[in-house]
Each structure stands twice: as C-alpha cells, then as structure tokens.
C-alpha cells in the first residue's frame, strides 16, 4: 500500500503554496474565510477568489458544465488543505451546492452552482428552530402548497450567515400528517423575498471581536422569521416531502473535506510553533516535559483525524458506498478540537484567559477565543451525539435508538 502523493500532486501542492505565499497573508485568508462577518471586504474577497478561479483551483472535482474543473477529488483535497491553512474555503463544502448537484434540476444546477463557486451566490442553512435544538426532524416551519407556489410560515434559529447570504437553504414541513422524517421539503429561497425578517443574535465572540482564524469565531448569527413568504415551486430542491433524505445526503458530503479536520489541527500547529519560539518571562515552554508530552499526544490524534478524512476522500473518489464515514469524522475532528483547546489553555495558564485586545494576550487572544468556539463544533452541522448514533446504525448495523 503506497500512501505517497504522486509527483503531479506534489507539484500542485507546491504551486498552491507559492501562490498563497505571494498573494495572501494569514490575516487576509482569515478575513476571506469569514466573508459572512460584518464589515467583510467582499470586493477584495471576490477579486482574489477570481484569481484563484483563473488558476483552476475552485471546486476542482465538480463537473465542468456547472463551473467546476472536472478534476479528481484528491487534487481538490490538496488545494483545500493548503487554503484551509490560511483560513479560506475553496472546495465548496458546506455551501449547499453539493445537495443541488445531487438532487437539483438541470436548470437549478446551471443557475446556482457556477455562481456559488464564483462566490457570487451563497446559502445560509435554515435548519435549526428555537424549539428543536439538535432534533432537526422535529422542525415546525410550514410550507403549504397553493397551486404553483408554496406559502412559508415559521421561524429558524442560529442561522449563521443569513445577513450576508443571497439565499436560504430552507427545510420546511410540507406534510404534517406524515412520519416526521417524511414530510419535509427543501426550498431554495432568495433572502429578499417579502415576508422574511432577520433578527441578529450576537455571540460570545462579538465583544471583543475574535481575531481572524478563530475556530468558530463568528461574532454574529441570526434568527429568521417567515410570515406568508410566497415562493414558486421551482424553488423546491428534489421531490416534495423528500427533503430529509436530500438534506442528509448533502450534509454527509459537506462533512467530507480538509476544512473539517483542519479547523482543529490549525490549533495544534499554531501552539506547537508558538511553544517552539516563545518564553513566558524566561520560562521555556518547549523544555517543559508535560507540555512536550501533551503536544505530541495532540499531534498524534490530529493525524488520526487526517487519515479519517483521507479515507473518506478515497471512498468518494472511487464512487464506493459512503455511509457513516462523514459522521465518524464529524465526531473525531470536533472532539479533537475541544481536547486541543482545553490542553492549550492548561499550557498557557492564566494567559489562556486573555481575549483579543487585552494586555499580555497571546497571539491576539486567539487561543482564548478558540476555547470559547471549539465547543460549538460538537453541536452544529449535526451534533456528535447524533453522529455517533449514525455510526452505530449505518456502520455497525445496530437498530434505530
């Protein structure tokens, strides 16, 4: 078994690294990765994204007819991995476009996917509701069919990016009498449709603002209200009442990719580099045996996360049955992120509490902000508890819990 990259893949990685060195700083990358943030310079983001697109590095493995490059998944992974190190997503993961490619009409694929790749269109995910928490199938937001239209009434919660998205990828209940997983439909709704109202929710990362590159450092999320929002049936993704299954497939594919595990591994790399170079008032961090042991342990765990991602990539690349692997990654990587942020806070001692802007804050307080953000990663996009249940059922053949 040979785990080496091919010479072509190594050359691609070098080319991407050179481009990043010449065109981006970590701060710029972090800001671009947070295009959803308030005050983000979207024009600058678009210009750089265009330049990256001209290199052929956006959505490499997506079909050419919809704006991708028609390339292989491993090449995309290499490019994703390098850009993720400077906080920028280039693979299209988490964008909603994966589900459109899987379940959309030809017209929807041609309309949405190229614009999503170019950064001209974006989706926020209208899943969670105030009463539901992680129990997504309990959603109550209603869409009632009326001829060639749906009328939507209800409310969504923790809708990150609703303030900067062009569309909402909305899960709504269309058949309240059906078994709860079977009465749900996905609608792709423009955010400027009359009847939509957005209420900002400021997060713990807002004051003081988390520095660029923080794990889940978004200072804002939203509530979104729908009152008699009327959309044509052409907004529907896939068949009516099949939204649960379309959404699950899209989410599982969204979970595959470099960004998920790198969110956690960034912290390991950053703290290792910091420990090598820093001394806290003459105390040499890198010479402390407890610190060295802990960093080695984190690094080993990070490599397990990476290998799990590579395995998923390989399954997707070979068109094999992809069932529980994304869920398994979604347990391992976020929990590693939490372990890492806690370990780092122990290593830094009282310095770990100093937030951005505080006197003496280490690296603009990023580790303190990471500690606050890491826990979120075990909840959003499918909680680790739900993911474990999926691994038990789909991977181990256990009955539904």
């Amino acid at each position, binding site marked *: 078994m040979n785990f080496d990259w091919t010479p072509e893949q190594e050359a691609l990685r070098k080319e991407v690294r050179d481009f990043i060195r010449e065109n981006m700083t970590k701060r710029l990358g972090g800001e671009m990765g947070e295009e959803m943030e308030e005050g983000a310079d*979207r024009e600058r983001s678009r210009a750089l994204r265009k330049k990256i697109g001209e290199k052929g590095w956006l959505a490499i493995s997506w079909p050419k007819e919809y704006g991708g490059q028609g390339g292989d998944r491993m090449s995309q992974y290499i490019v994703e991995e390098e850009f993720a190190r400077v906080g920028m997503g280039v693979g299209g993961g988490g964008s909603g476009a994966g589900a459109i490619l899987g379940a959309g009409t030809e017209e929807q694929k041609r309309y949405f996917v190229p614009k999503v790749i170019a950064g001209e269109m974006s989706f926020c995910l209208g899943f969670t509701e*105030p*009463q539901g928490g992680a129990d997504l199938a309990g959603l109550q937001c209603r869409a009632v069919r009326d001829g060639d239209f749906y009328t939507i*009434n*209800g*409310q969504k919660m923790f809708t990150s990016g*609703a*303030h*900067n*998205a*062009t569309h909402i990828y909305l899960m709504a209940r269309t058949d309240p009498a059906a078994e709860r997983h079977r009465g749900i439909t996905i609608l792709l709704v*423009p*955010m*400027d449709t009359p009847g*939509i*109202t*957005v*209420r*900002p*929710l*400021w997060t713990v990362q807002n004051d003081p603002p988390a520095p660029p590159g923080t794990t889940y450092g978004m200072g804002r999320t939203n*509530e*979104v*209200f729908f009152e008699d929002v009327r959309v044509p049936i052409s907004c529907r993704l896939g068949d009516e009442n099949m939204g649960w299954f379309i959404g699950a497939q899209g989410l599982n594919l969204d979970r595959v990719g470099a960004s998920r595990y790198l969110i956690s591994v960034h912290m390991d790399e950053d703290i290792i580099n910091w420990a090598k170079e820093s001394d806290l008032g003459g105390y040499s961090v890198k010479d402390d045996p407890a610190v060295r042991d802990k960093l080695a342990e984190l690094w080993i765990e990070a490599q397990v996360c990476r290998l799990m991602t590579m395995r998923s990539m390989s399954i997707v690349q070979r068109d094999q049955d992809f069932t529980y692997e994304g869920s398994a990654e979604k347990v391992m990587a976020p929990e590693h992120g939490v372990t890492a942020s806690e370990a780092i806070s122990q290593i830094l001692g009282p310095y770990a509490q100093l937030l951005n802007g505080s006197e003496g804050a280490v690296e603009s307080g990023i580790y303190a902000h990471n500690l606050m953000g890491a826990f979120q990663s075990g909840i959003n996009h499918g909680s680790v508890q739900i993911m474990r249940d999926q691994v038990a059922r789909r991977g181990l053949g256990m009955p539904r819990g």
Partner: protein
Amino acid sequence: MARDPVCGKEIDEAAVRAVTGQTAYGAPEVDPTKGTRRFHEGVWYYFDTLDCRSKFLASPDTYIKKAAS
C-alpha cells in the same frame, strides 16, 4: 403593548417588528434589543429575551395559564 408571559415585562410589539436595517442581500433586519417573538398555536407571543422564550417553549401551557391569571 404586549406582556412577556414568562417575566411579565411589557414589550412594545411594534418595536420588536420595526425594520431598522437590511441584510447584504435585501432582507429586512430588526433591532434585537427590543425583544423577540414566537408564533404559538395561532398567536404571536412577545419576549424580553431569548431566555424567556426558551422557558416558554419548554412549557408553553404553564406560561399561557400564568399570563391569563
């Protein structure tokens, strides 16, 4: 004016709903400091904070009865 069924505070429904801005792609925004709301069994309820609304969602009948009394 409405009354928060959990904490009893008076809430200005018009202020909760008043449009104070717009998102990057055209959705109206409201001021979150004015409170929030929830449509429950045909009626809009208004709340001072998300905490109040979460308590209400956990046991709506308890708070509706309490407010009525």
